């Protein structure tokens, strides 16, 4: 599973599936956030560039900007999170996915980290 997943320096993950990628925030980001109560979902259909800010997650003690790991078009958003934002922390890599993006340049994935690199990055930053 890991080799299809990449992570960003801003704690998002992207799971790739052909030209589409499923984006959410990592378990490590959830731990930092604590109790999540609100998610500002990205705009459906919006064309975004890598590292654009596309949404916000708000928790009791924090607010976390969501940046898109790749450029492309946002083709689906997880509307369930509107009612149940806690899904993100319950199952960040599964039911807590945030948006799906149609990638325009898959080589951008090469700039991202795999899980081992991501863990190392967190330890050094920490």
């Amino acid at each position, binding site marked *: 599973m890991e080799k299809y997943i990449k992570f960003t320096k801003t704690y998002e993950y992207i799971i790739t599936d052909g030209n589409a990628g499923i984006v959410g925030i990592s378990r490590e980001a959830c731990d930092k956030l604590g109790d999540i109560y609100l998610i500002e979902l990205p705009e459906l259909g919006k064309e975004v560039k890598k590292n654009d800010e596309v949404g916000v997650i*708000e*928790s009791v*003690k*924090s*607010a976390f900007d969501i940046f898109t790991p790749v450029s492309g078009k946002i083709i689906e958003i997880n509307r369930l999170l509107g009612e149940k934002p806690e899904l993100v922390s319950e199952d960040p890599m599964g039911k807590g996915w945030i948006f799906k993006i149609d990638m325009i340049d898959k080589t951008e994935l090469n700039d991202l980290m795999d899980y081992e690199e991501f863990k190392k990055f967190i330890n050094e930053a920490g």
Partner: protein
Amino acid sequence: MSYFVHSDENRKEMLKTIGIGSIEELFDCIPENICNPEIELDKPLDEKSLKEELCVIGGKNKMIKNFFSFIGGGAYNHYIPGAVKSILGISQFYTSYTPYQAEISQGTLQYMFEFQSLICRITGMDISNASMYDGASSLAEAILMAGKINGNKKVLLSAAVNPQYREVCRTYCSGQNIDIKEVGYKNGKTDINLIRDEMDEMAGSVIIIIQNPNFFGCFEDVYELHDILKKYPECFFIAVINPMSIGLIKRPSDYGADIVVGEGQVFGNALSFGGPYLGFFATKKDYLRQIPGRIVGQTVDTDGNKTFVLTFQNREQHIRKYKATSNICTNHSLNALAATVYLSIIGENGLRHISNICLQRAHYFAEKIKPLDKFQLKFNSGFFNEFVLSSRLNIRDVIDRFYKNKILPGIYLGDNYPELRDCILVSITEMNSIESINKYTEVLKSF
């Protein structure tokens, strides 16, 4: 009195515990050439001497109560009940910190919640924050908030809004590329036709600001404005109010305000040479996540007891940093307490009654001026407790004669409104007795 608590023995003992030779060692990090500078200050004053010195300094002031004072213009002389001062003197209120730790701050949190509730009741809006610095800076912050919500960078600001408020707005907006255009007044009220024309031209993507009653004391044509603004749903209407006037008049929610700000000094806060006063800020619930300042919410604890807590903190600077709704951290909590106690003491009827005294006496005064030859009311629009008095005499000479009679006749308007260089702004509150008004008109008649 120097408030230090350690004897030299204490200090020696502590240094020994830490294992260092002298306190200077703790300051080794400071570059030697700039450490321990000569700072010229006098010997410390003991408490008794301090009090005596300050009495002498205070003696150089002349208190309002030694005159018949008719000065207003954004700061008003209202009666403050003894209970307000007594509660403000409770040390657990004034020596406590911001209530970040809810479990030991329920006192502060609850009065802040009650203050927010009172502001909502007075303005008719859905949510209020827990106070800001003053009416002027609250207005400036309202513009910044409105600008962020719908990208509005154009402001129509009535020239009948308090001149100091307009200056503060320009200062705050200079950091943000917001364009402020002033709209003139006619007969003491904002010229609504000018606003209508501007709105047509700008197609509605504008922030409009009206003060009601305005700086001249006049009631604005707010319902007419409301009708015009209905055609432009993207516009933002910010209303500035003197909350004492709500004792008698409708709330800005009735005439379509999106944000209501103003000066709460009138509720239980001393004149105190201009500060600290009390900015309030209220708006619709749709804008909860954009409102600046601290907000208190009601919740429960783990036992299910009702408790209060600072909430929606992630709008604020300590969490959101440069994306915060505002940079405000310290607010005017204690002044909000004064307002909360004041309103609780005077009650619903008290607010109406005091407001009525102000209105009635101001109009009694205006009637006495009407038959005078050399003085008149500049405008004939309806007004609350302030009006503009004009004269064909040299207004400076007029003012001087009043001072000789121990009357502070009002505020000279010519500095801020050159077209009103023959005018003064006269303010009346319940602190102006009928006798003082009669004395004023006697002096007018003496010209």
